[in-house]
């Protein structure tokens, strides 16, 4: 059991940041929205606990890829902490996306060599 959790954690380590940045590309969002969005768009494939988002969010903020601000949510009439992508964050997203693509291609080439050569 312990081993499984660890595997998932390592998988998320690199990708979670990218997923968050990607989510914020659509516009500012608070932690809960980001979590929900990632879960929804992956069809609940990534069964992550929302809590694990926050360390990542604060890490991204510290690196200057996102900024945060307390703003009133239009539907709830309460303040939430909204995160917004910065220019630096956008650049980082491009870098990470291309890296991810390269890696995915590399992995695919290993797993399905024939298909990729033909394609």
């Amino acid at each position, binding site marked *: 059991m312990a081993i499984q959790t660890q595997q998932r954690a390592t998988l998320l380590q690199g990708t979670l940041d990218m997923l968050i940045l990607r989510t914020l590309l659509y516009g500012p969002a608070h932690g809960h929205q980001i979590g929900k969005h990632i879960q929804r768009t992956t069809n609940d494939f990534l069964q992550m606990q929302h809590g694990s988002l926050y360390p*990542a969010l604060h890490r991204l903020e510290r690196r200057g890829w996102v900024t945060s601000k307390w703003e009133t949510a239009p539907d709830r009439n309460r303040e939430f902490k909204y995160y917004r992508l910065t220019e630096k964050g956008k650049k980082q997203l491009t870098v990470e996306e291309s890296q991810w693509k390269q890696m995915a291609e590399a992995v695919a080439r290993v797993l399905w060599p024939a298909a990729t050569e033909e394609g």
Partner: protein
Amino acid sequence: MHWWQIRKRRADLERELDSDLALEEEEQRERGVSADEARYAARRAFGNTTLVREQTQDAWGTAPFERLVHDIRFALRQLGRSRGFTLTSILILALGIGAVTAVFSLINTALLRMLPVHDPEHLVEFKSTNPDFPVNDAFSMHAFKAFQGQTQTLAGVLAFRNLHNIDIEVDSEGGLAEGQLVSGSYFSVLGVNAILGRTILPSDETEPGQNPVAVIGYDYWRTRFALDPAVLGKRILINNAPFTVIGVTAPEFYGLQPGKRIAVSIPLTMVASVNPGFAAAGGPADALKAAFRNWLYVFGRLQSGVSIVKATSRLEPVYAQTTRDAAASLAGSPIDSPAVRATFIRSRLQLQPGSQGLAILREQFSRPLLIVLAVVALLLLITCANVASLLLSRANAREREFSVRLALGAGKRRLFTQLFTESILLAIAGGILGVALAWWGSRSLLALMAHGRTPVSLSVQVDLTVLGFALAVSLLTAVVFGTIPAWRAAAVDPQHGLAQNSRTVAGVHSRLGKSLVVLQIAISLVLLVGAGLFTRTLANLRDFYPGFNPESVLLFSIDPTLIGNRDVVPLYEQILNRVRQIPGVRSASLSVHEPLSTNVSTTTVRVQGAALRQGEDLSSVAIELIGPDYFTTLQIPLLRGREFFWQDREGAPKVAIVNETTARHYFGDADPIGRSLSIPGYRGDSSWLRIVGVARDIKVHDVREPATLMLYVPMFQAPEGGSTFEVRTSVDPATIENAALDAVKSIDPRLPLFNVRTLAGQRDNSLVQQRLVASFSEFFGAIALLLTCIGLYGLMAYTVSRRTGEIGIRMALGAQRGRIARMILRETLLLVAVGLVLGLPAAGFAARLISGQLFGLKPADPVTFAAACAAMAAVAILASYLPARRAASVDPMHALRNE
């Protein structure tokens, strides 16, 4: 990042998590889930909030610092919760650290501190040794000049001679001070500079009597001249001879004799101006010329690359030549004899590292101080053992807490770090208090040591190395014994720990605790025995009768020669007559040296017509110049003959009185009355003195010394400079002090009068070191006893609390309360017995080590050993009384239910 920013961030995070969690909950409810269910679902979806918080804080990059702050706050809270434990540990640690540091700082100052001079490692102290006088530190001017020529070996040589109690007159106001005569090379060889004006230079050493310049010490400049720069060029009178102040030396330089504060330094060539009798200028024994006059202390600076051994071998032939010159120069002098010549020629040069100044103070203080150091080291050991057992029992009591915390998911490392933090905090608090104690202690110790008549001038600084050492030892003890339980607790499965109540672990701990207590008992016994031996020695020394009656005697000293009055006999007669008329005075007399003084003149004696055994004419005899009624005044019994009368003055037949040891030494069983002897070595006068009396031996130097050869000569037949008056009173001698001083002042108000004191006080002063050691060891013995008592109490109280269940069962099975109490008591006494069995041989060994310091009792003094053991046992019973009573008052039902 600052703490307020951290706090703001933390509040921000809290708000963010709360708002998002609330939203999740709302959404769940909107989906139709019940309120309770929604809350749980939201929490599940969210995960471990505490962990999230910690991980998020990690992301800020400030976590280690925050965790440290947290640990410290937690540790403070934990320590604050058990205040008794915390205060006791801190006090114990402070005591150990403070005592060790204070004592060592003092020892370091007195013994080990380097001179505040340039490059002290290359300084060597010149000594000579021969079969008759094993250690000799004085050299002749002739030898000094010969050494000065040896530039291949020595980068420089200096010579000096101290001037004890000189009168320095500034603006027609006199005052006594310590001074020294120095060679022109003195300051340059030492590398000591003037902070004002200049030092004495080789150019200040031209012709005898032609260099009236003086360099004063910083302290003297401060106290006598209030740091006035106008002191340069000022005319002062030293022993009535005019000098000009040319400079002031740096504040940290006090001369080469530790403990002496040199007020003034003048060139060697001026010796005849300040002490003409000693200088004997122009005569055959001229101090600046005669090769046989050894009076200079010599230090040299080695050329780099020259070792002491090499230097000794190179200088030895030079020195040998000077001793042959000295022997030859004796020709025609009254002290010339083959034996005296042989003494000179057989002298060999000895060089010693000079970096610690003259060794006198060092030797005087070193043994008692080393004993005190040993005592303090043992105390530090007890301290550590005590703190260790305190920490152990506390940790034992907290084992359940550790198990609970581990079960609740605390990391083992966190647990360890927290205990570690607690230990460190304890040690630091103890350390800070210890530093304060050390600072205060070293000053009080110095004051205690300087309680004697001679003011000891040392600048004591708390020694940082030792402070560091003591701190490190305490820190190590605290950390090791504070965290052992954490290691053990971590090794035990929490479930097991909770279920078993960790009995097994407790067993191991209390074995360790017991060994620590036994160790404390053994060491305490050693300290107690030492304290007892020293206390009894002091009592014996005080009660010892020195051969005269020291009670009810007033002493005061005057030196009329310092103001140029050389015709002292009429003056002394006048003073004696006046003093005798004071009501309450029974008799009065005078002598050159005060009774019990450590200053004494010795010479060799020639006996008329006696065939002496080999070497007997070299025996050194102490000479005392005394006035009439001396023996009556001090109540020294005369065995034969008479004492000196007022008629024994210049012009009358020369007479002498010997003590019984001298009589036996030279005349065996024959009657010495009417025989004659001479003391040519004393002042070059070889006329015969007729023995008129034999007096009982007294202890001159020190009440602990064996009787010496002693010769009394009438002061009025051979007058000398300063004298000490002894006044026997029928009332408290302190009450006539003013009347006596008025009597002296009424004769001449300018007379330098000093050292007014009682003989009994003088005797107590001569025991100052013994009293110091005794009070130290008593003090530390008491502390050791107290610490051991605390340790024993802690252990027994802990044992009883652990065994409440067992005691309950025993009682339920019919054990009487008295029996239970006796059981606890028996266990305590068993521990004490083991401690005593281990401690007795150690104490015996320690007692043999200090046997040289004991007086009037054997190292294995049964009274002391019995008293120490009894004290230990009494304290043990005291320590176990409360735990035993608590054990006896255990309610069996209550105890069993708890189990």
